[in-house]
C-alpha cells in the first residue's frame, strides 16, 4: 500500500499540481474551523458562508505564488478572522440604526431535537458563558495551538492557559 502523505502542506502542493482530490481534502479538513471562526464573530449563515468562500478564493489566487505551504493552515485561520472582522465592520456601516447581527441562537425546537444527540458535554456547554462556548468550539476544531492563535488573534503563549481555563469550566459541569 502506497504511503499516504496528507499533511496540509503536502495537500497544498498536490492541489497546485492539479490534484483535485487533494484540493477537496484540504477544503473538507479546514472549512469547519473557518465556519466556526465566522460564527465566533456573531455572523449569520449568509455572512459566515461568505467568509468561508472568500477565504478559499484568497488561497486560490495565491496558491501559485505560495512560498511556504506549511504556513497554509495558520494563514487560512488568519484570513477567515480578517474577513469576518471586515464583514462585521461593513454590517455596522450598512445598517447603523439596527444592532449588529448576533450569533444566531438555535431555534427552541432545534435545541430539543438536537439535545439527544448533544450528549453530556453538549448539555454542559449550554450552561457555559457564550465566550467560553465559542472558545471551546474553536479549541475542538483547530488542530494546533498555532492555528488557534491565528483564529483568535491572540499570542501563541496565551492559547494554552486559555484552553485549560475553559476546559476546567466545562469539566466541572460534566457529571
Amino acid at each position: 500500500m502506497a504511503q499516504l502523505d496528507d499533511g496540509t502542506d503536502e495537500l497544498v502542493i498536490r492541489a497546485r499540481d492539479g490534484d483535485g482530490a487533494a484540493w477537496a481534502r484540504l477544503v473538507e479538513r479546514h472549512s469547519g474551523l473557518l465556519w466556526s471562526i465566522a460564527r465566533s464573530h456573531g455572523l449569520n449563515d449568509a455572512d459566515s458562508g461568505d467568509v468561508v468562500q472568500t477565504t478559499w478564493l484568497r488561497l486560490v489566487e495565491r496558491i501559485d505564488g505560495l512560498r511556504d505551504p506549511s504556513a497554509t493552515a495558520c494563514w487560512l485561520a488568519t484570513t477567515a478572522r480578517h474577513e469576518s472582522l471586515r464583514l462585521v465592520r461593513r454590517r455596522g456601516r450598512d445598517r447603523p440604526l439596527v444592532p449588529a447581527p448576533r450569533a444566531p441562537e438555535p431555534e427552541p425546537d432545534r435545541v430539543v431535537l438536537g439535545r439527544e444527540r448533544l450528549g453530556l458535554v453538549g448539555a454542559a456547554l449550554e450552561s457555559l458563558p457564550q465566550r467560553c462556548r465559542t472558545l471551546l468550539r474553536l479549541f475542538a476544531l483547530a488542530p494546533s495551538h498555532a492555528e488557534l492563535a491565528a483564529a483568535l488573534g491572540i499570542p501563541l503563549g496565551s492559547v494554552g492557559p486559555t484552553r485549560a481555563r475553559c476546559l476546567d469550566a466545562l469539566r466541572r459541569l460534566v457529571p
Partner: protein
Amino acid sequence: MNDDELMAGVRQAFDALDPLPEGVLAAARASIAWRTPAATLAEPVQDRGARAAAGVRGGPGRVLTFACPGTTVEIEVAEFGRDRELTGRLVPPSSGAVQVRHRDLPPDGIEVRAESAGLFWVPRVPEGLVSLVLRLDDGTSIVTSWVRL
C-alpha cells in the same frame, strides 16, 4: 472524562447544532476552478469612499485600487440597488480584454475592452464577490484580488 473525550463531545455538539452547510462546502470545493496561474495577482492597496446610503441612487462612488509590479488598476464602483457599475482605468494605459468573474455569472460572463487610454466600463455587475481578469494586448495577464462589491 479526559480532555480528548471532552473535545470530542464539543465537536459532536456543534456538529449537531450548527453544522457547516453542504452548499458552503460545495462552493469551497469549486473555488479551485477560479485559479489563473498565468496571471499576475494585483493586490488591493486602497479602498476609498463611503458607500451610498441605502436607497440613494448613485451616491458618492467607492474607488478601489489594485497594484502589481508595473501596473495599477483603479476601479470606481457606483451602486444601483443590487447592481454595480464599474468604471476602470489601467495605469500606465494599456489596452486589452477585461473579464468580470462572479459566482452568479457564467465563466465567460461579462467581457469588455479596455481601450488604448486604459479605460473600461462595465455597466452592470451583480453585488457580491468580484474579480477581474485583464488580458492585455501585450500578452500579459493581470487578475485582481477578489473583492466584495
